[in-house]
């Protein structure tokens, strides 16, 4: 927990607590789940359980960070899961013949370009993000199968060494390099959102795109940038998944876009845009991860219970958001 809480800088001090409420609720939920798990199961309340959640969900965390940018502008990106799969597929197919650094740069570029293209189409042709990214989703998933229909193993020495490295944090505590990468992404993204003009423009566009335009903000650039960031994050998430799975496969990360959206929403970001924090997204991913851990500890429960619990949580959080928004609206009158 401590490793998580410390590096996140204090965001806008003195903002209304109401904005923080969803994040606080998610944080409380996470703590409650952890405590409950610790009481119920032997060997649950250890630091490594939390670290494992990070290790098993580092790729999701990175993807969810990109998704947060998009949702903050009031958009949505359904293509992320497919781009993750495409990344694993391209990496796996190229690695035997190409240096790993080139492969990494290439897949990041592909993710970024795909995202930028979708952002540009969304903005300049004024098409719903849902439709454009749905098309992107089919495109990327389809491209996977043009490379191959079977799972391709990755034997590249760089990839396998990253996959097998354990960074010791103390006795019986370790994390993978992927966790460090994911946390670095979170920090960089938080800084971008709160201390750069681009980041503030993201919030402004999500708050009121028309106003943002009239205030002279670069709306077009901002919208294209968020989808580019999301594409880049998906590609990076795909690389982390390659380290984790050591294989490329067209069926990797099926439905991951929905997990990412769920994490962002559970983290308290409004789907209508303009309000939310990355800290919430981190907590959202942790909550999702911890649900899986709890269900695996339960042993007798089918893993599909994960989906049921996530579904219920989503419902609760969307209702909570609605409540906050409507009480806020009546107060504004």
């Amino acid at each position, binding site marked *: 927990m401590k490793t998580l809480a410390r590096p996140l800088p204090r965001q*806008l*001090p*003195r*903002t*209304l607590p109401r*904005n923080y409420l969803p994040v606080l609720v998610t944080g409380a939920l996470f703590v409650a789940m952890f405590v409950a798990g610790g009481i119920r199961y032997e060997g649950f309340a250890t630091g490594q359980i939390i670290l494992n959640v990070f290790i098993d969900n580092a790729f999701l965390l990175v993807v969810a960070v990109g998704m947060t940018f998009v949702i903050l502008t009031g958009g949505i990106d359904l293509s992320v899961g497919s781009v993750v799969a495409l990344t694993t597929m391209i990496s796996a197919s190229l690695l035997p013949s190409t240096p790993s650094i080139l492969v990494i740069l290439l897949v990041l570029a592909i993710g970024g370009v795909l995202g930028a293209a979708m952002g540009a189409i969304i903005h300049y042709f004024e098409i719903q993000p849902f439709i454009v990214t749905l098309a992107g989703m089919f495109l990327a998933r389809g491209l996977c199968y043009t490379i191959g229909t079977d799972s391709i193993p990755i034997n590249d020495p760089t990839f396998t060494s990253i996959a097998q490295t354990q960074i010791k944090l103390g006795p019986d505590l370790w994390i993978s390099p992927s966790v460090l990468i994911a946390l670095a992404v979170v920090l960089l993204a938080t800084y971008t959102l*709160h*201390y*750069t*003009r681009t980041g*503030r*423009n993201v*919030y*402004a566009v*999500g*708050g*009121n795109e*028309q*106003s*943002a335009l*009239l*205030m*002279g*903000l670069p709306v077009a650039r901002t919208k294209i940038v968020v989808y580019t960031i999301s594409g880049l994050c998906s590609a990076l998430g795909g690389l982390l998944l390659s380290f984790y799975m050591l294989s490329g496969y067209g069926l990797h990360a099926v439905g991951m876009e929905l997990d990412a959206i769920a994490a962002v929403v559970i983290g308290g970001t409004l789907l209508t845009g*303009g*309000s939310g924090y990355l800290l919430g997204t981190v907590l959202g991913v942790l909550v999702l991860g911890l649900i899986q851990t709890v269900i695996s500890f339960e042993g007798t429960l089918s893993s599909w219970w994960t989906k049921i619990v996530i579904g219920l949580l989503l419902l609760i959080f969307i209702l909570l958001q609605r409540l906050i928004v409507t009480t*806020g609206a009546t*107060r*504004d*009158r």
Partner: protein
Amino acid sequence: MAEAILRMTGIGKEFPGVRALDGVDFRLLPGEVHALMGENGAGKSTLIKVLTGVYSIDAGEIELAGAKVAFTGPLEAQKAGISTVYQEVNLCRNLSVAENVFIGREPRRFGRINWREMRRRAAELLTRLDLSIDVAKPLSTYSLAIQQMVAIARAIDIDARVLILDEPTSSLDAGEVAQLFRVMRRLKEQGIAILFVSHFLDQIYEIADRMTILRNGRLVGEYVTAELPQVELVGKMIGRELAELERLDERPPARTSDTLVEASALGGKVAPFSLTIREGEVVGLAGLLGSGRTEIARLLFGADHAATGTVRIGGEQVNLRTPRIAMSKGVAFCSENRREEGLVPELTVRENLILALQADRGWSRPVPRKKQDELVAKYIKALNIRPDNPEMLIRNLSGGNQQKVLLARWLILEPRLLILDEPTRGIDVGAKAEIQKLVVELSDGGMAVLFISAELEEVLRLSHKVAVLRDRRVVAELPNDDTLTTDVLMETIASGAAK
């Protein structure tokens, strides 16, 4: 006389089928408040949009401080020192006050936004406008008036030489208007030229030094406010006699007809109230913004749920669960928010007109095209909707004419009770008189009208009785006899009488 900071000469702008501006000259002096006057559709908005680069011009030229300019967008105009504050505050309510002032130009140190410096400078800037508020709070926590001040603060921080205020006062109450005027006077002293648009003549005469009048896209003239009596101004704006307006000033006699609507102890978002509306009676609702006027209307239309009380319509008790039930009982509701709740901008005048009738009949029984055309022609004529082309897209009509279409939509249903929520807000004098006249005619024909307006004169002119609201509570119900004046109404609102 000082050299003009802004000079527009021979401006022409044409849209398909409409000549919006035709050889208009306009000049703005530094340190003056200049009112741009004209009916809706006279070309005021077009002139402003041309000036701020939203539209390009077909003819003429624009000079700013002696140099010829042609802006391609609001951003470019802003950079040149022409800032605009619109009626609908164009800020981001989810961001803090300080951010709204500075976004796009945030103070930075080593590329990192310096939040402390930004808040300090925002507070300083707002103090110059006599406003001391917590700039770290989200804009949405403040009233519309303060949001408008923030918009002005943003505008003047960009070193504005010309400040355009497009109907900034239409949703402010008297105190807020006074505050805005103080700010405007202060800016004037600093040499900023202010272009001011408002439909409230009293405000024009209070604040404007000079005015330019437009009619049908042409320049009528440029006048010094103090030298132009109000009656002449209105005459120049609408180009016809004011007899119609004055005839309305006779007080309507009280109605003694049968009771149509009887609400007893009805409550929801407003405190429980009782109200009866007779057939052919106009009942006015007076009160400040947010006093519960619209809430009462929504209760009677079934758009909000009543927590307590009962409603009888024509003697029969009705449970108004949905607007549909209210409509079937002959209640029609013309909402105050014509852009968001009423009109479908992408549809034509005819389609918009027919919408409520069609919904009433059910979608399985389309209104025959011939009947549509008949009805549409009838109402376009009756309400003097201009241009009288039923196939024109509604978004191309001026505000006043949009409002008439909205009214006609409900009139087609021949309702027994017509609820009008701010039907004349933001529309010009001519259209306003027409709508007021229509209300009188409808009530003479036996239709009951619940009339909501922020303008007390208007409420007084039309209503048979007035219910006064304050803080979401009906504080008084006053018959409109000789003793009732706007002063009495204001006092009742201010004191909240029966508390």
